[in-house]
């Protein structure tokens, strides 16, 4: 499987203050890694550092894909609730940013969009995104991440507000795109960690360990 991320003596932190030493490892597509550790241990820092190179203070961290092939779900997504936008429009507009030829896309991908929406968002597809609950927003972002067919998924507590049955459907969708992607999740609930599977990265005392 192709290499996606290579860490060699990487150190992460904010404003030149070191927070986390990363153990050396090569991550490849088809792998799923789960970050575990206490609150504030640095799980989110690990994920954010892959989108914000400023957080890498030293050592080597090589990402072999461009930013637009990364799908990220931050812990607290910040949309503008000021803008009227329906769930379906949100997905179509997001995809057309990444793939050119927006018009061709609407017909080609319609089926795929509706399939992803069936995982708990079907009734909400015409709703305004500002009217969605926290769990629905998480499902929407995950649906978008899956539609993007990204090479690297960075998921920070993606199920924290999602109910049990929908969680399983979302994990199934993640399983489907796993062969072509590297997935890194931050989780803290034991049941979720078990349901998701994958190898664990423990973060403790400012260090990561596999």
């Amino acid at each position: 499987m192709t290499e996606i991320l290579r860490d060699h003596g990487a150190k992460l932190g904010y404003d030149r203050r070191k927070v986390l030493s990363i153990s050396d490892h090569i991550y490849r597509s088809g792998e799923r890694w789960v970050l575990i550790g206490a609150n504030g241990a640095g799980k989110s820092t690990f994920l954010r550092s892959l989108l914000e190179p400023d957080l890498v203070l030293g050592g080597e961290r090589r990402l072999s894909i461009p930013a637009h092939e990364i799908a990220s779900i931050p812990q607290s997504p910040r949309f503008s609730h000021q803008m009227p936008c329906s769930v379906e429009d949100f997905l179509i507009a997001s995809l057309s940013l990444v793939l050119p030829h927006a018009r061709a896309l609407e017909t080609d991908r319609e089926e795929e969009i509706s399939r992803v929406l069936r995982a708990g968002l079907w009734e909400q597809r015409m709703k305004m995104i500002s009217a969605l609950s926290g769990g629905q927003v998480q499902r929407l972002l995950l649906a978008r991440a899956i539609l993007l067919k990204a090479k690297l998924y960075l998921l920070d507590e993606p199920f924290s507000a999602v109910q049990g049955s929908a969680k399983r459907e979302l994990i199934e969708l993640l399983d489907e795109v796993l062969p072509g992607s590297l997935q890194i999740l931050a989780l803290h609930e034991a049941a979720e960690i078990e349901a998701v599977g994958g190898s664990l990265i423990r973060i403790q005392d400012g260090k990561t360990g596999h």
Partner: protein
Amino acid sequence: MGSFFLEPFLEFEFLRRAALEAVILGFGFSVVGLVLVTRRLSLIGDTLSHAMLPGVVLAFTVFGPHLLALFFGGWITGFLLLVLAWALFRTRRVEADAALALFAVFSVSVGILIASRTRTTTEILHLLFGNILAVDRTLLMLSAVVAGLTWILFLWHYRAVFMALVDPAFFQQMKRPSYFFILGLCALFAANLTVGFASLGAMMTVGLLIVPSLVGRSLGKSPLQMALIAFAFSAVISVLGVLVSFHLAVPSGPAIVCLACAGLALIQVFRFRRFFGPEVDLS
């Protein structure tokens, strides 16, 4: 009815021009207002208007009271300000509104200093406070070009504008806009505001910029709908406002803005009734 609605327009060309100018302004503003309202930058217009002073004063001293010269003076200053504020905002040390306020106060003080050393007259105030009843053909054409360009760019990059407003973080990650595009956007914003100031004046421009967009936001279900509703609303309000100002012999700009606010209030009252009514959706 006819004597109220038609006769003033048939009789006076300056009224026709004023109404047309307000409608054209509302066309461009419907897009600009959409961006400002959703990015919480509603008062940027007011800030920019004062900040245009140095450019306007300089243009006046060099070229005299030529509308085009004053327009370009104000436009270039507004453009530079937007670019500087954007550059500062990009460092992530300062929020967008604070960055704009910072450069604006600096610019105003420079403007006042320059003005105090030159002989300034009411022509400059004319550009800053505007008079829509005195709009001439040049300003009409200028406004039409600016509004047309604004809509062309909006429709051309519709999806990108949409995403940039709904989910800025995603937009930044997926499609970092080119510097050229950002500069173009700043130039277009400044141009829209400058033609607004020249005809409506600073304060009233903010009114025509923000109020229709708020109406559009509360009724529209997509950015395009929002912009179209805002334009339709501002067009109706503009024509009515010019008529009311003529019949009551009051200034046009404030009449338009007062009517717009009343219209917004009326729409919100109807929405409130629906909100508290039996069809509340609690899902």
